[in-house]
């Protein structure tokens, strides 16, 4: 980095020596002697396998490596012998037994210098524990699931698969009562079963869960003994004392209730870390929920007992370190310490209470301080919940943190709009979500809203390219071109995959065209639902996670695993991808073909097939003259709302057959809007293949010509806006899972206290009018340089410096350079 840019990158705050050491050590990456790389374990049978390729079905960049991963883990796995009795047990029990054996007997028990928390090396790949017959059956089914999944991806529908993680376990229960109480609860449930049920699958599931409850206890005991032994050897009296406290902590939690802040964090970490291993990804998107709420009693008690906030920050600094070691799983892959994708261990701060009151407390601010001190760092990912009653002090802190980082070191979640979406689920879960408890929601993964401790809603399991429906309309239910395998392979023929919605010449009115779009949308939704059933049913049959099931309310009560739909609230989510590209394409078709009659539908489709080459003027009209979503243009946003409601209604029509999970809609695009841009053809909004598609609920790149407020208003309108009969108060939200929204701001907007105050005003407006979640980026010089290189994507980037305003891309190169230099210095 050039010296002059140094101040443009946020630096960590004042960390204690131990936390600084751990943080620095973490960033040494592959140079570390210690890491948390995968350890794999096998029962030793010749057919055994560890890696579940379905966990990567929603990660297209890994498709080429699926078989490699399966074979690699087989090769590196260490045999953990099992006896004959093992094979007579149910699969759930085998899984619980084997997992426990690996964790208690094989997990290396170590403590890093100065570390205050026990529990690491959790990236484990366990045997699937299948019999030969089961493994063969599974392999056969997997073959079919993979084929179906690849068809979906290669033909532009998107991707789908039963994915691990993405939920908030009931950590509060363990911290407050310990696994001991859970064990006793399971024991009672088991005792209440009829002998027939005890001998059946319910009994087996409960026995497996009881075994799982004892796993953290026995691991913690090993840590306790280790700490004690280390303490005896330790020459430094201060460290000796610390090790003795750690020994006492792990002798107690998570089996027993925690009684102070330190014990609560230790209990939380060990419990969480074993969830990460239980699903072997390690479980992505396993989130902590409203951590400043359920830890608050422990915080207050410890403060009263004399624990200093500085010490709490040290404990949390260690907690941060441990969370980040999740990335070590594939530390040698990629150039950035194995950080190829987020693990999304979210922690939620603040938010409203049952009566609309604000729930911010001292612990909220303590967490925010730690985030500020530790960032830039990826995990855990904070979400701050804002609402109409959020206090000024919190908003000030949020804006301050945004202004000193390159954008927000957290995601903002907006309560009213989010809760409106969650309320849509109420009728589908027997009222388990209602006006009184909906405020307890929290996001998982990136920003996907769920309830806490009793909810698994497969928040990223299905990712549907809405734009595919239009391609099917253009080609009367077929692909626009035969699929071609770029790595070789036989040529394919076009087949009638979707319904025939008419020849182009017959779609002679807008109404007919839109009807065809709706029919194809219904088809692509169903297609994805059918595909999902394959992986979902395989997971339900072969991949029980009894440990995780102990932490999800509903599993014990129903006597079924969380992978079999055990959670009390058990939805599965379909995420809409390419939303704005689809809306803008519909708007362009309407404008060009039916309203302005600039061309016929046949001509337009010809232009799309030619990737707009030779049709530059028509393309320009599609890009610049046709209306667009994201400008607070009432007519265009009405189309956005119509598209939103239409596809969401389709999604609500389905449930999984194998696990009875209701589908629900959301809008997150992860990186698919980039990857799919190579697969989906040119679109009617003027986009060429492979220009990027639109991201989540954001307007198309460069379409939001009227700035952030109009962009936000459009997003709120697309989600349903407000109405006298809202889902929560006057707020309407068609997407219970939430919708990802990103806005980039100019650094000058938050340059001084007066401007920070103005920015706060924007956030308050967003609470009123915007969406469910907002990622804020602060414009950096790299973006401006990108704007120089690709002016077409930044047509409306406004540069404003006291009294002067102009479009960045319209000023000369020399002036652009000057502005970039200024941005880097924040010099005005």
């Amino acid at each position, binding site marked *: 980095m050039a010296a002059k840019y140094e101040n443009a990158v946020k630096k960590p705050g004042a960390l204690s020596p131990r936390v600084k050491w751990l943080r620095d050590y973490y960033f040494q990456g592959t140079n570390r002697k210690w890491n948390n790389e995968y350890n794999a374990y096998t029962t030793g049978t010749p057919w055994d396998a560890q890696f579940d390729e379905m966990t990567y079905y929603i990660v297209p960049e890994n498709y080429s490596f699926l078989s490699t991963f399966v074979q690699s883990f087989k090769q590196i796995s260490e045999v953990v012998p099992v006896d004959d009795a093992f094979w007579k047990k149910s699969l759930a029990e085998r899984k619980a037994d084997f997992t426990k054996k690996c964790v208690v007997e094989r997990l290396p028990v170590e403590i890093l210098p100065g570390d205050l928390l026990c529990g690491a090396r959790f990236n484990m790949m366990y045997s699937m524990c299948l019999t030969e017959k089961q493994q063969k059956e599974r392999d056969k089914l997997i073959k079919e699931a993979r084929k179906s999944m690849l068809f979906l991806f290669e033909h532009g529908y998107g991707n789908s698969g039963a994915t691990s993680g993405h939920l908030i376990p009931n950590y509060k229960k363990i911290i407050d009562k310990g696994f001991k109480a859970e064990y006793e609860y399971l024991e009672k449930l088991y005792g209440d079963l009829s002998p027939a049920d005890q001998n059946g699958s319910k009994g087996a599931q409960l026995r497996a869960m009881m075994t799982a409850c004892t796993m953290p206890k026995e691991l913690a005991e090993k840590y306790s003994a280790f700490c004690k032994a280390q303490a005896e050897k330790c020459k430094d009296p201060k460290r000796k004392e610390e090790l003795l406290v750690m020994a006492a902590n792990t002798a107690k939690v998570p089996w027993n209730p925690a009684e102070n802040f330190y014990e609560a964090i230790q209990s939380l970490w060990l419990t969480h870390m074993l969830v990460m291993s239980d699903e072997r990804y390690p479980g992505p998107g396993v989130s902590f929920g409203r951590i400043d709420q359920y830890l608050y009693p422990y915080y207050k008690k410890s403060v009263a007992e004399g624990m200093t906030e500085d010490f709490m920050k040290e404990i949390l600094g260690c907690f941060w370190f441990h969370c980040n070691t999740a990335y070590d799983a594939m530390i040698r892959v990629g150039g950035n310490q194995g950080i190829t994708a987020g693990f999304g261990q979210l922690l939620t701060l603040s938010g409203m209470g049952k009566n609309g009151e604000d729930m911010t407390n001292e612990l909220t601010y303590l967490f925010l301080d730690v985030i500020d001190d530790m960032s830039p760092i990826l995990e855990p990912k904070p979400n701050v919940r804002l609402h109409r009653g959020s206090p000024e002090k919190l908003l000030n802190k949020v804006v301050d943190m945004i202004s000193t980082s390159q954008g927000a070191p957290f995601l903002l979640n907006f309560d009213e709009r989010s809760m409106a979406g969650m309320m849509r689920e109420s009728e589908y879960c027997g009222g388990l979500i209602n006006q009184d408890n909906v405020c307890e929601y929290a996001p998982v993964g990136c920003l996907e809203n769920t309830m806490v401790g009793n909810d698994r809603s497969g928040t990223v399991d299905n990712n549907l390219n809405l734009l595919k429906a239009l391609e099917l309309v253009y080609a009367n239910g077929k692909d626009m071109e035969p699929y071609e395998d770029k790595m070789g392979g036989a040529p394919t023929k076009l087949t009638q995959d979707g319904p025939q919605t008419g020849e182009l010449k017959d779609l002679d009115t807008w109404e007919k065209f839109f009807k065809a779009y709706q029919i194809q949308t219904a088809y692509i939704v169903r297609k994805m639902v059918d595909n999902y059933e394959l992986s979902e049913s395989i997971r339900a049959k072969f991949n029980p996670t009894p440990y995780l099931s102990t932490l999800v309310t509903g599993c014990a009560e129903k006597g079924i695993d969380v992978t079999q739909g055990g959670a009390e609230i058990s939805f599965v989510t379909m995420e809409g991808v390419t939303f704005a590209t689809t809306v803008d394409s519909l708007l362009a078709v309407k404008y060009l073909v039916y309203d302005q009659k600039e061309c016929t539908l046949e001509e337009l489709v010809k232009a799309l097939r030619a990737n707009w080459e030779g049709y530059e003027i028509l393309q320009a009209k599609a890009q*610049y003259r046709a209306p667009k979503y994201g400008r607070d243009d009432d007519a265009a946003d009405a189309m956005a709302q119509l598209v939103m409601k239409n596809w969401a209604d389709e999604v609500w029509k389905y449930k999984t057959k194998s696990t009875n999970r209701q589908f629900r809609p959301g809008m997150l695009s992860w990186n698919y809007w980039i990857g799919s841009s190579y697969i989906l053809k040119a679109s009617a909004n003027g986009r060429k293949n492979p220009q990027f598609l639109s991201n989540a609920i954001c307007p198309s790149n460069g379409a939001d010509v009227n700035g952030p407020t109009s962009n936000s208003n459009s997003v709120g309108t697309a989600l349903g806006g407000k109405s006298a009969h809202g889902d929560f108060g006057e707020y309407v939200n068609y997407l219970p899972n939430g919708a990802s929204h990103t806005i980039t701001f100019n650094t000058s907007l938050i340059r001084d206290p007066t401007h920070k105050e103005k920015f706060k005003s924007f956030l308050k407006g967003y609470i009123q009018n915007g969406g469910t979640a907002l990622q804020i980026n602060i414009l950096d010089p790299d973006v401006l340089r990108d704007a120089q290189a690709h002016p077409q994507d930044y047509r409306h980037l406004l*540069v404003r410096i*006291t009294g002067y305003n102009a479009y960045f891309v319209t000023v000369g190169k020399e002036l652009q350079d000057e502005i970039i230099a200024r941005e880097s210095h924040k010099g005005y």
Partner: protein
Amino acid sequence: MPAKATRGIDVKVLDIQRMSTEDGPGLRTTVFVKGCPLRCAWCHNPESIPPRSHVEWLGVRCIGCRICEQTCPQKGIRLDTDGVHTSEQCEACGACTAACPTQALELKGTDYTVDALFDTVMKDRSYWGKDGGVTLSGGEITLQWQEALTLLTKLKEAGVNTAVDTCGLAKREVFEALLPVTDIFLYDLKLFDDAQHRRFTGQGNARIISNFEWLTAACEGTDTRIWVRTPIIPGATDTDDNIRGIATLVQDKTEKWELCAFNNLCRDKYDRLGKDWDFKEAGLISKARMEALTALAVSCGAPQAVWSGATARTDSET
């Protein structure tokens, strides 16, 4: 002076800036209108000066399709080797700008009815908060004061905070009319010396000063706020004498006096308008100079003086 019936009379709007942070307190929506009685030599937004609409060409967007030439009913536009130019025949009818496939042609100046303008600005009401609101700016808003009065009245009825950004050159009656419906006046005092004012802006400053004195007196003891703005332009307004002189007018009578440092970032706009600009080569003012001028203003009895804007980087900063 009573407002004329404004039904059917449109406001000639240059631009509406939403989420504006630089036109008064809080987050605001700023309406820039066309037409200005001054001809400041340093003007940063020269496209706002002519009262009529005009067509502007943004070369970076142009694909050279010549649809503009084919569309123009007056034959008043042509594509040359150095870009698209309008001629005397151009009536700014908007035919070419509506037809241009890439929006390389923009019609500067759009007619809004007061009601439409009101509805448009109100879309951002949720973002204004307790400090923000709507600012009417220019050009010079007082040239369209009757429409402004109607709009401001509607905004006040809706409980919106209103600001008027003015150069001060209008009849006294205009300010008398606007006073009851304006919460903040953003008032420009550029040059104290009348001859200099005439030289650099094309008009003397007697009326501007007299209106200012009337306005400060009228606002005294009321909730109406005044923010004075003085552009600090090298070789024109950046002298100690000028600041001393303006300080005698401002004293401590206003809530804020902002010295706005010059920048030359708008020189492309002059190129696009095909005009030369005296300040093309003028550099940025140093931070030290801005601080000195501000200190001078404070020492002359205006403690509310502050400065803003881009300044030249010194070696120690780079």
